[in-house]
């Protein structure tokens, strides 16, 4: 398994308070699998992804287990975490502007870790980045590398961030609302890139979204999260059509459906 969480629990701890965010989560992602994680704001979707990357320090009390590519993340030392983040997993978030340094050229941002962590020469790194920027559908990649983030649109920047995520050849992608800020046609382009790269590289992906229609259209399996508990797991081909839990049904009812078919 590329990702396996077993009885993962997380509490935020402060001096006089403990808040339980995740309460015994079990989920997994296999190579080539596109797995959805849906739920309302505050249900613990992003916390699950961040916990899987080992991004919490003393502020969180984590029990249970998360294994990425069979390496335990919970309680791992800095060296192991660095290896996991450098070689096994990549994260794509909603706001690409938050992921890129606004005062550095895009090429410099992307090349940095390939040179410093992966030991590539700068010209090798540049060649890999140009190839990836082309693969994610950016025109004129050499120009893009010399540009700053503010010179690109949100859709273009999200492609840059995806190229950066793929540049270290990860096996698992965590996409946290990666297409939520994009309009429908751009969203489709980004999803098409994800699906193609998944096929070509046999990647696994955990796709976090609040958009049930999108999750229903692309995912192989969907976990429905509510207040830190997986209340239902839905499998292809039925997915939401076979939803039993009342929370899942309520989410589906709340999501507006485009009435594009003429009522008969």
């Amino acid at each position: 398994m590329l990702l396996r969480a077993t009885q993962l629990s997380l509490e935020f701890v402060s001096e006089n308070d403990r808040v339980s965010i995740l309460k015994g989560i079990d989920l997994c992602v296999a190579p080539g699998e596109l797995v959805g994680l849906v739920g309302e704001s505050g249900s613990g979707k992003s916390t699950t992804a961040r916990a899987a990357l080992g991004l919490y320090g003393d502020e969180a009390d984590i029990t249970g287990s998360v294994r990425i590519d069979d390496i335990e993340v919970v309680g791992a030392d800095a060296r192991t975490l660095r290896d996991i983040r450098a070689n096994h997993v990549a994260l794509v978030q909603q706001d690409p502007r938050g992921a890129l340094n606004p005062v550095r050229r895009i090429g410099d941002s992307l090349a940095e870790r390939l040179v410093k962590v992966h030991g590539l020469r700068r010209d090798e790194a540049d060649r890999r980045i140009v190839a990836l920027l082309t693969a994610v559908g950016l025109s004129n990649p050499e120009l893009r590398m010399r540009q700053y983030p503010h010179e690109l649109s949100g859709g273009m920047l999200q492609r840059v961030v995806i190229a950066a995520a793929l540049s270290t050849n990860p096996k698992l992608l965590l996409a946290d609302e990666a297409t939520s800020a994009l309009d429908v046609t751009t969203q489709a382009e980004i999803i098409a890139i994800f699906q193609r790269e998944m096929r070509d590289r046999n990647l696994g992906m955990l796709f976090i979204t609040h958009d049930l229609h999108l999750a229903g259209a692309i995912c192989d399996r969907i976990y429905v999260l509510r207040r830190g508990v997986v209340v239902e797991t839905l499998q292809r081909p039925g997915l939401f059509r076979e939803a039993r839990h009342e929370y899942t049904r309520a989410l589906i009812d709340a999501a507006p459906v485009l009435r594009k078919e003429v009522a008969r």
Partner: protein
Amino acid sequence: MSLLEVENLHRVFSARGRGGAVTAVDHVNFTIEAGEAVGLVGESGSGKSTIARILAGLERADSGTIRLDGLDCLRVPRTSTNRMTRAQTVQMVFQDPNGSLDRRVPVGTMLQRTLLMHGRALSKVQARAGAMQLLERVRLTEREFRAKPHELSGGQRQRVAIARALAVEPKLVVLDEAVSALDVSVQAQVLELLAEIQRDSGVSYLFVSHDLAVIQELCTRVLVLFRGAIVEQGETLQVLQAPQHPYSQLLIASTPGEGWDPERVVRDRMTFTQRMTLPGLL
């Protein structure tokens, strides 16, 4: 005469150093009747927000006319009386309430100030009662009255922004992606609330969104915007079920649902863009 009449509205942004100007709003015409909710849909960069901001007086137009309940919306208000009149005619609700609410001021105080400033309350006692009434109308309570914006959830904050817009009893409320940042269940509650307020008060909405499904929940009529121009307008259901313009067709086909294929959407989009760049085809 309609409540809002927009004629030949035009706005060009000059892009420095790019060797070209962007036509954000391209000779746009539309009307909104009293008590009507109209949706404005289009992709990022189509000019939706520019139109919304021009209506609210936050952006100027190059040419055209806007008449809203007898008020010339394009004339820059020079006196405070004029500014007040304008504020009492049209109000705006933004996507991010964190950016539009003063984070240092408790919600109740903010509403009381608005009511006093616009003469909707003549004493502090009246203002307090009025502010409570506004909060009740958006289903908030005494607790939220005393809270500062950061103590509220995203949905509650957006309700406060709606309450403030309603404080001056405007004829038109412009909502710019007002529910886009909310998750589905909160979004459904806010949409229901907006519909209820409209039924009770007869206010008109211009509801700007990139999400057709959301527009369909609230709006009887929709305007489809592409590169600054309205390419189609009509009854929402009619446009959804029998879109005439290729862009409306593309937009509807792109919305995720059963049998959605991103590769197909990308191909359709490319075909469409190619057609758009060949003159005389549309």
